[in-house]
């Protein structure tokens, strides 16, 4: 489906400006007592490895969820490849935070990977033999095909992350949104994941990953989004990942913004017609 056009992109010189993968305009999000995103304007290029970096509670995961339509914004809109997300679902793969699910759930690694095919399967259809083989191939790509039938509670942290990545690979997407794919994995897995991301980029695909480790941003990624409730900076790593920008992202508390958020939440509590912004989760 999207592979051919994506491959064209990969054959181009990666330093030249590419198509826009995600366009965000004037995005403001608030939900429950969580921090918010405030007036984010952002356009992300295609075919890059993009890190979203910022302190705890900066709204990094919320930004991903807003792109995916899991959180409804108060204002603003998001376009994925020049259309609303609903129309681009099959182009986008998602890797949630590893801790977001119950790993004691009675299911095998292969079953989880097959979930990546559910979107293409649609309602009521069950995965068949060909889907099983597809899922197995994805597990093989992340190097754990031998664990296909292993119950997920018996997998290590790194192996669980690989299962989630394999599930996203099964989605065969043009754009991947990953929530901390490197969090809490061993060194071998970290290397393997990095190799996988670079492979995806080489195929012309785009990866947007929330990333916590500032030391590896410049090494792993080529584009960075610095976020702390508002957008601090976004651009190629060489020009944007600077000490000044990091200081602006991490240094000092954003008192005005925090106060504004609290005022907004208080207003929402009073005005029920604003309740539409509650997340789907």
């Amino acid at each position: 489906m999207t592979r051919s056009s994506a491959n064209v992109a990969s054959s181009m010189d990666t330093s030249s400006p590419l198509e826009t993968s995600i366009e965000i305009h004037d995005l403001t999000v608030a939900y429950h007592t969580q921090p918010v995103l405030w007036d984010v304007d952002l356009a992300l290029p295609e075919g890059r490895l993009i890190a979203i970096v910022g302190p705890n509670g900066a709204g990094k995961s919320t930004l991903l969820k807003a792109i995916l339509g899991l959180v409804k914004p108060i204002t603003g809109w998001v376009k994925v490849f020049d259309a609303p997300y609903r129309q681009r679902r099959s182009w986008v793969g998602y890797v949630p935070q590893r801790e977001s699910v119950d790993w004691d759930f009675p299911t095998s690694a292969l079953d989880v990977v097959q979930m990546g095919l559910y979107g293409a399967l649609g309602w009521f259809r069950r995965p068949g033999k060909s889907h099983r083989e597809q899922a197995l191939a994805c597990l093989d790509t992340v190097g754990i095909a031998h664990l296909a039938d292993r119950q997920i509670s018996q997998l290590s942290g790194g192996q669980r992350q690989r299962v989630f990545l394999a599930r996203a690979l099964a989605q065969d997407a043009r754009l991947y949104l990953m929530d901390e794919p490197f969090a809490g994995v061993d060194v071998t897995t970290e290397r393997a994941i990095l190799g996988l991301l670079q492979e995806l980029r080489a195929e012309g695909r785009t990866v947007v990953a929330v990333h916590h480790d500032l030391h590896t941003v410049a090494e792993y990624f080529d584009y960075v989004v610095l976020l702390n409730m508002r957008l601090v900076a976004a651009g190629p790593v060489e020009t944007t990942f600077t000490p000044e920008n990091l200081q602006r992202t991490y240094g000092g508390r954003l008192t005005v913004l925090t106060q504004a958020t609290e005022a907004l939440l208080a207003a929402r509590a009073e005005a029920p017609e604003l309740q539409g912004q509650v997340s789907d989760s």
Partner: protein
Amino acid sequence: MIEWTFTLRNVLIGATLLGVVGGMLGCYAVLRRQSLLGDALAHAALPGVAIAFLLTGSKDPAALFGGALVAGMIGALLILAVVRFSRVKEDSAIGIVLSVFFGIGIVLLTYIQRQPYGNQSGLDHFLFGQAASLVTRDVVVMAILGGLTLVMVALFYKEFQLLAFDREFGASLGFPMRALEVVLTVLLVVVVVVGLQTVGVILIIATLVTPAAAARQWTEKLGIMMLLSATIGGGSGAVGALLSSQIARLPTGPVIVLCSSAVLIVSILVAPQRGLLWAWLRRIRLVRRIQDENLLRDLWVRLERLQTGPYGSVAWAALMGMRGQTGRQIHRVAKRLEKAGCLKRDARGARFTPEGRVAAAHLVRKHRLWELYLTRQLDLAEDHVHRDADMIEHALDEEALATLEEKLGYPEVDPHGRPIPDPSRRGGELGGEIAA
């Protein structure tokens, strides 16, 4: 012998049906950690029964079930609404809705009992269940509702699995997760209504949770868990129905619950992997293995120092000194090892058999390779590595050992200058002899 009557037939079919449907749906309740939601829905259904009777003046199952369905769904919606629009947390919301609806239900039932209807007796059966009061019409309605539920569960298997395991991922794929949750909750209400007359408001939660929790002990696959849970639920229903029909004054609902509870207790104890009994046995086996392996290695190390040849005898006192064990402890372990053919005991001490020596060589090899790895790769001081390596020899499998050997380049001497025996090579079991 069992006397076959219409009542027994109805009770048997009704109880089995309820067990199967409750077992299926209960899996989702248990896996989504919403067991108590089912309890709240059951209690919420009670006023529906009373109001339906007040409105129609009849005990027609269609009317009463309808009332229970509507009230149960209102209860479910209220819980969702309280959680969404207030700061009250879900467990409190469940508690509030449960008690308020149950209170209303009891008030209405008491009111009905005092009215001159003449046909109101039996409504209180919904409280504790009265399976014997099931008439054919009840069973037919139960079968229709239960059948519908099973069809829905089969139809939405993939979608419900997504809802229970990874809701946000499901939403990102475009499945309407909130709508699916409503459907699942409605199905839960249906099951509750199906069970009201048989098991009653108070105990219905057991038909949902108990078989599912028992089934979870035996399998790691959702589909099998659901089938197993349905089997346990259905079996308990059937056995409970038969038992209570044979023994006077035995109430059906509670007996069904006791049957499934018995299965649950057995499952918690003896199910492989998850069973407590196996966990306990595994622990004992591990402790014993560690004791055995420690003694084998201690014997090796002593022999190395004594230089009395690979099959020389080591005094009990010397072995006791190595880990501060008592003579009794050492003898118990040594006896076990003698049985396994690893060493020979006499009054003064112990010595290796050839098999025992090979086994010990393996252990010593793992231990010393690991010590070497720690000092070389992690730059730990020589005198710090022994304790870490002490545990690793019990845990290191062959695959990890091979990696270790390769990384270290098949070394022959450990950081303390002692030889690393290689039992795979000829004469490797004699490694202790060439000690410097």
